[in-house]
């Protein structure tokens, strides 16, 4: 039966947490990371959140419309370069009803919580130095 093996864990604080969140198991630290690297992670995260996908499509369409002769690779590079700014403006200036999208649009904290061990999807992961 559908999801018959899954334990009820209650209501999660956010739709991006809960089932998909997992749990740190050892070596927690808060580390100030290089801003460029955090923004790269941010862009990666946005590209992998279902609710953001319509905005990604819209931005790519927008780029295509204003650059009709550009090829796919150029468009993808341009998208990667411009999307964070465009998304922030789109969500925060034009209004949006979804709270989590607003938090995403504001961008992440440059202080990152890091773990050396992490449990998710019934796997226990460790960083290479812990392994």
């Amino acid at each position, binding site marked *: 039966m559908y999801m018959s093996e899954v334990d009820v864990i209650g209501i999660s604080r956010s739709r*991006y947490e809960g089932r998909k969140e997992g749990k740190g198991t050892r070596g927690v630290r808060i580390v100030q990371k290089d801003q460029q690297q*955090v923004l790269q992670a941010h862009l990666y*995260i946005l590209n992998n959140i279902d609710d953001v996908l319509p905005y990604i499509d819209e931005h790519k369409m927008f780029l295509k419309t204003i650059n009709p002769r550009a090829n796919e690779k150029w468009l*993808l590079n341009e998208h990667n370069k411009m999307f964070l700014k465009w998304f922030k403006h789109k969500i925060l200036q034009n209004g949006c009803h979804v709270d989590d999208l607003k938090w995403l649009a504001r961008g992440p904290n440059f202080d990152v919580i890091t773990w050396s061990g992490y449990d998710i999807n019934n796997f226990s*992961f460790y960083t*290479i130095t812990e392994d």
Partner: protein
Amino acid sequence: MHFASSKDNNPIMATISYYGVIEEIWKVDYVNFRVPIFKCKWVYSNTGVHVDDFGFTLVDLGKIGYKKDPFIMAYQAKQVFLCQRSF
């Protein structure tokens, strides 16, 4: 999206497995929620991954690639067990 080379202007969508090791585990903080990601060293698929005649996947951790794309969503990761290959 996959590009055959940096000059490939016709990328294709495909599902490919990447092998690598986790260097850092991050929980990116968006104040109201946090998103776990892994920062990885990936083995370059073209030269570092090879399936042998017995069906074992050989992964050469010395052939590191995709250095510009180190991140993966934690929930997308699957675990494999590596053991040293004897020659």
